[in-house]
């Protein structure tokens, strides 16, 4: 059976991105609960995370809209 290598690579790549992001999220959750972290550090991380989420939201919506549009034209 032939393996669709490109498809396999895209799955592996997506999983590795998600795994790396999971580590970052774990760090953020730990930071939120750590009483020794001061307000300056918290604010800096919060602003960085906000920016990531703003950009990530737009990127994801774009990908989803593309899937929806492709599905509509196929129907």
């Amino acid at each position, binding site marked *: 059976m032939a393996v669709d290598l490109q498809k396999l690579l*895209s799955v592996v790549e997506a999983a590795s991105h998600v795994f790396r992001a999971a580590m970052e*999220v774990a760090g953020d959750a730990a930071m939120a609960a750590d*009483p020794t972290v001061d307000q300056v550090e*918290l604010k800096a991380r919060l602003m960085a995370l906000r920016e990531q989420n703003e950009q*990530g939201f737009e990127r994801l919506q774009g990908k989803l809209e593309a899937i929806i549009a492709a599905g509509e034209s196929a129907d």
Partner: protein
Amino acid sequence: MKWRTAFVAVAALALASCAGLGSTIVGGLSGPAAIANKTTLDERALLGLEASYKAARLAMEGAVDAGLVKRPLAVKFRDANKKANAVLVKARTAYDAANAATLDAALDEGAPLVAEIWKLVAEQEKTYGR
């Protein structure tokens, strides 16, 4: 898959930090540490919400990038993502304006919306048998 299980645990941790932090800090500590924590409570709560949204958002994006999301689920993901983002915008605006009541309400609204995204991600897993 293992990465998803890890993600669920992390999101739960982030949500827990978001939802339970207030009572832990306000009721559990005393002295300078308690004062420092009270002044950073908004940052900690919002950080928890942002982190839990990030986990859910990336789970959706991971499924999309892997080619596992077709049109019907894409519509659900899009709508859930939009709703979660609207609450995040509300929470950020309240935080910037130091509006504690609105921030509190947005945090309460945010957790179930993130949970809704996880439900959709689980649905995708069921569909593709992973």
